[in-house]
């Protein structure tokens, strides 16, 4: 089942959820976790992920920290206080969206 296109509009919300649920994450970890949770349907490219992370960081939704890892440096992202609020709002929006989809797809159940 290919649902890649359906994820696109919710990418920012999904990234916030992932980081919020794991306290802090780095770029590669985010791409792997998204792929794992979506059974391989959500393939976030670097050209999409890093600019989005930078945008969220500039807005003050995320904050980052560089930490040494092995022989290299790794950049970890975590939610700021306003980021946690944004995550909550994003979660509620997705819930509402799912409910509205249910009304379209199966009106008898609602």
């Amino acid at each position, binding site marked *: 089942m290919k649902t890649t296109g359906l994820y696109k509009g919710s990418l920012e919300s999904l990234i916030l959820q992932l980081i919020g649920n794991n306290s802090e994450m*780095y*770029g*590669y*970890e985010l791409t*792997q976790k998204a792929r794992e949770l979506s059974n391989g349907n959500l393939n976030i*490219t*670097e*050209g*999409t992920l*890093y*600019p989005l992370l*930078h*945008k969220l960081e*500039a807005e003050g939704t995320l904050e*980052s920290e*560089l930490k040494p*890892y*092995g*022989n*290299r*440096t*790794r*950049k970890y992202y975590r939610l700021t206080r306003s980021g946690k609020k944004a995550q909550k709002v994003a979660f509620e929006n997705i819930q509402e969206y799912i409910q509205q989809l249910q009304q379209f797809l199966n009106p008898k159940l609602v």
Partner: protein
Amino acid sequence: MDKQVSQEEVLALHQFCIRHFVSHYDVRLELVDHLASSIENIWAQDPGVSFQAALEKVYAAYGKTGFRKLMREKELVIENTFNNGIFKVLRSFFSWPQVVCLLVLIVLCGYFFKFFGENNAYTPTIFCIFLLSAVFVFFIATAIFFYKKKKSLTKPLLATNIYFDHLYLFIIDTAIINKILTFVIDGMHTGNYYSPGKYIFTVVLCIISLLTNAAKIKYVRDTFRKAEQNYPMAFK
């Protein structure tokens, strides 16, 4: 324990990124970690794969354009961040008491120059030249500030370097200086040194120039402070 990328291989990844037009240190640092993690993921499945073969496989996933899409997207985000940031700083200058005080000052100065302008034709011209000098000095100070900040970097950072390519930021100042000079010269030729329209226009243009330059300095200073904390290796 799984096979990890060595120190030499990390350096090779940095060189690889530079060869593929990722010269900015901040972008490179994150990209090198991403490439190294992808290579280690390949090694976790098949430890026999050479570093070079794994890197080629990872890079092939970026398609024909390589890292160019990533760079272009990041540059766009930074440009938008810069423009929004300047606007936010500008907006923070406009609190109600400040705006009211400024308007009162403009009106008082207007009456002052109207009164003196009728008795002494040169007073408004001197005022215009004074404003022009303030705009010019602040414009030069901003340019020197940008230059000094650029010189403090030992490695280019995308988060900071992008501003120096934006010469259009100074177009407002040159247009304002040109407009005020035209007023002064026209006044000298026609003998019409003072008119309320000219006065308001000159003052508004000068305020725009001074505030935008102040916003640019504040925003760039904050960005550099943040960059210095995050990437101390990129500074002298």
